[in-house]
């Protein structure tokens, strides 16, 4: 569970970086009509999205509606464990961040 969430987060991060590069950097305005760029970029983003994360429809809705009671109970346990872990990890990271920034400014 931990691994899959982390890898998903990693994918999203990667995607964001690609989008940023496309819009502001590497995919920036080269020669050609200005008006075309958005269309071109959208097409590229969609292609990249398919590459990075294949379309999966509407997984949450269909999963939940089809899940039996016991599966929901089990899934909730997993989700909550992960949420608790991530929340406490976030707090730890924030503390460390403050600590590092504090020592940098000294």
């Amino acid at each position, binding site marked *: 569970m931990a691994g899959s969430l982390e890898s998903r987060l990693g994918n999203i991060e990667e995607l964001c970086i690609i989008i940023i590069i496309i819009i502001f950097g590497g995919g920036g305005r080269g020669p050609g009509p200005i008006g075309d760029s958005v269309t071109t970029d959208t097409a590229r983003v969609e292609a990249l999205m398919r590459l990075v994360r294949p379309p999966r429809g509407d997984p949450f809705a269909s999963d939940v509606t089809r899940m039996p009671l016991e599966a929901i*109970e*089990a899934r*909730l*346990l997993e989700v*909550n*464990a992960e949420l*608790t*872990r991530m*929340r*406490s*990890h976030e*707090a*730890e990271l924030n*503390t*460390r961040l403050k*600590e590092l920034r504090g020592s940098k400014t000294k």
Partner: protein
Amino acid sequence: MSADSTPSVLLIGYQDQDNLGLRYLLSSVLQAGFAGRIETYTADPEPIVALAERLKPDVIGFSLIFQYMSPAFGRVIEALRVAGCRSHITIGGHYPSFDAEEVLQRIPGADSIVRFEGERTLVELMQKLGRREDWRPIAGIAHRQGEEVVVNPLRPVLDDLDLLPFPDRSDIDYRSQELPMASVLGSRGCPWDCSFCSIRPFYEAQGGKLRRLRSPAAVVEEMRQLHFEQGAEMFLFQDDDFMATGRRARRWAEDIASRIIAAGLKGRIAFKISCRSDEVHYDTMARLAEAGLTHVYMGVENGDDQGLANMNKRMKASAHLEAGETLRSLDMSFDFGFMLLEPYSTIEIVRNNVAFLDSYVGDGWTVAGFCRTLPYAGTPLKTQLEAEGRMLGTPFEPDYNFLDPKLDRFYDWMLLTFYERNFTNSGLNEVLRRLNFDARLKLPNRRKFQPSERAKVQRITAECNGHALYCLRSALDYIEATPVDAIDIRGGYLAKLTAHEKMQERRLITELDTVNAGRFEWRQFLESDQEFRSLGGFANAWTLAPQDLPVVG
């Protein structure tokens, strides 16, 4: 003990946190010219029987702190008698003080009970026995007369605590402890009348003030001696309520702080106090922190206003939250007692308690432990439950059912699920309590936790709390929605919750093993000495009778 004919006493009891009760008794006996020593209680009678045979003391005094331990003490006393011990055997402590008749009837080997404050009663008992005079009329004694138990009138309370000699600690080698930790007592008694507590009735029984204060000069002189002569660095104030009550108590506490600083102890020692949340005032706490206060234990008990009213706590839950913030702002560690369930709990109150714990310590500043209220001897609660015909169990092991039978099922599940976590010394609750205490301890000879290490401990504590609170919430949801007869605490969803909680605990324990390996070795802390236990582990202060304990695994 004594080679000559000086009458002697052998005092037996637990020695966690120095057992000041026994040490005050011993110093009074020694001051009166008698001989004596203290020995640790063991459930196995053999060592005590062997010692009694060797020393042949005139009096053997048992310190019976835990009500449920009465049968075990009875077995040791029986073994002494079977072995031919002819010493006068007496028992003291909170429980036998309130329930002397029951104790004497069930422990036939005991000759007497020294009720309530025992220093002067024990000295008089030894005087009478030494002179072979009749000891039965002594004030404060209960004894057997034929089939009957006679309970004598009590003696007036000792008004001036400074008249008592300092507790005898001649057999304690603080310097050999990994963290030299001594208990001290600045006061006796508490004016608050919480329904679950027997402290006020205990001191009220003998009359006098509900809280008596030692002079700050005497308290600090004792600390000074303990530090410079015996090497104590950490002090645990064992006062029932260090800050009770109002401005007078705050001035007294601040005076102690000033004298600690004036005595040159600042920066050399640290200390811990216990108090109520609504007595945590920033200015006083800051002054105490300057003198070395690093840890506060609070009797929080409930996080719901109705629950607090049920317990007669005379305060609102918001005071707990404010106290927590104050102590955080002073960078102090704290922990707290919490009774998730009490005899008048409703599911709504319990749910609010769970939500409260999340607000209070969801950040992992300290670990959330929880239990239920038990109606101990001498408490207003016991009287109330008796009047309502709700008292169950035995005199030694009181019990009751909740008003909502679903909560009985919930409590059974809670014990099954959190027994290891909450009630054992190796459980996460105790381990994290200790680590959080250490993380904010400031002593010159103590390795300080780095901020990142503290953050890790706090993160793991937050996780520990988060998983437990989630399981509690989920169990409440399930139990509320399920007919009481269909609630199966060992199967189905509740069993899955139990397994989930235990899995998370195992994972966190494993993670603690790998946190900063080589620098932050918590297992070594735990195994090094008794310091960990001295902080008051649940396993050393059971609120459960052994047969209440669930079979785990």
